[in-house]
């Protein structure tokens, strides 16, 4: 069978570790005490998780983060795609330029925006300085601004995926139904709502599926920009896992947390994927 090697590779790197971490999530395993690997504690890690308010804050923050970021990315991406779709001259060049943020490593995106948002030497504060804002705004240190700054970085990095894929969708839309609708007296909003959008739906869900595969990469950005600070205000599930697992060496507890995050990611992906299948069926392309 041709897919066996793929399944083997994934089995070795993903499935076996997952089974192993599932087991450790039921033990009190600490990196510093190897023998604790066999200390079975049942559901105690999960019970501690439920009682842990810090965890629930991080969980809620992660959900909020994903909701805000994904929605805005979709919205901006759609806007940019519609904009570029109107351009006839230089469209290809623009499309290429738009792909650039997509290929920035998340760690690089984090660093770049850390630099821009730096309260002392950052580009943004320097820019505001020109307009007379003498006092430096502590973008990454203020408890509310920090989260916003991270979201900006995340949106900057990933909007282009939406824009590119939606643009591909827009270019593939047949012209006839749009012209027919125009002749029948639809205004441009009605055309968009009733013709363009349904055609775009599969592409929207492709983009969301691809994005949801990678949401965990936000860890890189948060890790380098704030490291979860100030005072855990930007702590997402992923940074919390890393901290508890490696800094506190509390593997059992961290694995219990990572199971929650894994289920979260898989649920997102699965949801969008089924939506994608449904949208395809609506268009009658199956």
């Amino acid at each position, binding site marked *: 069978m041709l897919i066996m*090697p793929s399944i083997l590779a994934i089995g070795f790197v993903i499935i076996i570790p997952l089974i192993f971490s599932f087991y450790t999530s039921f033990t009190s395993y600490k990196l510093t005490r190897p023998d604790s690997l066999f200390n079975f504690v049942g559901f105690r890690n999960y019970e501690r998780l439920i009682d842990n308010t810090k965890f629930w804050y991080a969980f809620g923050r992660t959900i909020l983060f994903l909701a805000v970021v994904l929605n805005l990315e979709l919205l901006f991406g759609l806007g940019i795609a519609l904009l570029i779709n*109107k351009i006839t001259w230089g469209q290809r060049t623009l499309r290429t330029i738009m792909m650039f943020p997509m290929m920035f490593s998340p760690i690089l995106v984090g660093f770049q925006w850390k630099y821009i948002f730096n309260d002392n030497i950052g580009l943004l504060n320097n820019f505001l300085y020109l307009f007379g804002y003498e006092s430096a705004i502590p973008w990454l240190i203020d408890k509310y601004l920090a989260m916003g700054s991270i979201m900006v970085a995340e949106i900057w990095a990933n909007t282009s995926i939406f824009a590119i894929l939606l643009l591909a969708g827009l270019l593939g839309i047949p012209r006839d139904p749009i012209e027919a609708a125009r002749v029948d007296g639809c205004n441009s909003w009605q055309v968009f709502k009733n013709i363009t959008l349904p055609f775009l739906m599969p592409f929207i869900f492709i983009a969301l599926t691809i994005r949801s595969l990678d949401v*965990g990469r936000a860890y890189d950005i948060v890790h380098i920009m704030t490291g979860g600070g100030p005072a855990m205000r930007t702590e997402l599930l992923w940074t919390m896992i890393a901290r508890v697992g490696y800094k506190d060496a509390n593997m059992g507890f961290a694995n219990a947390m990572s199971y929650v995050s894994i289920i979260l990611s898989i649920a997102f992906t699965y949801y969008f994927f089924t939506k994608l299948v449904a949208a395809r069926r609506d268009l009658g392309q199956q």
Partner: protein
Amino acid sequence: MKQIKKIGFWLLVLFLLILICLPGIWIFVSAFRPNPEILAKPANWIPDRWTIHQFTQMFSINGYVSVPAFKYLMNSVIISSVSTVIAITIGMMGGYAFARFNFKGKNKIFLSLMLARAVPGISLSLPLFILFAKIGLLNTSIGVIIVYVAMNVPFTIWLTDGFFRQIPKEMSEVARTDGCTRFQAFWNVELPLAGPGIGAAAIFAFLLSWNEYALASIITRTVHSKTLPIGMMDYLGEFTINWAGMCAIAVVMIVPALILTFIVQKHLVSGLTFGGVKG
């Protein structure tokens, strides 16, 4: 009225372009200037004094180097290329199978492969760290390569599946009635046709490995296996950051990525959307 609308439209496009490009340009410029100038206020866009000090320091092979960037670069190149070659070979086989054969539970297997990819790197890193420590793969290039192969395979399957679907089934059938074996038909007819698409998938896989941080930061420990994204963190001191050095290593990281993106962009989009829409 129409004129105003047009001007507004182009202004909007220009604004977007600036928003997309400016951060990158700023990093690029900063890589070539001395550290004090970075700290200047107000911002100094065109450096008074261009310098390649950061680059010479990074790449000097003998003598004292604070950050052995050359070694990191070599690690990155080796790990990314080897893992890409393996992932593409394995993934192509899988993609071909999904595009051409019908078997039980095909859609379910496809979906579960994709879901395996959805596991966040950091969650995966905990058990991998323990397992790799047990079997001695921690802090080796081979360990990182194995991980990247598995990370890249699902996406490669998604892309190549789309490309193989675009090739009419009849072509391989004709080749086979003319006496080719299935493999010969694949090798001589279908593979060359899907070639550009597979190249795109390869570059995509390469970039994913090139840019990965969360897993590599756990598996790699020393200069033997650290890749560029991990090496970048060397410039991050506990209290100070060497901004110029960081910008310089960022440039080293990004230039190959941008060039590859430029080559690949057309096929990548068609692969993603085709595999998605008609899958």
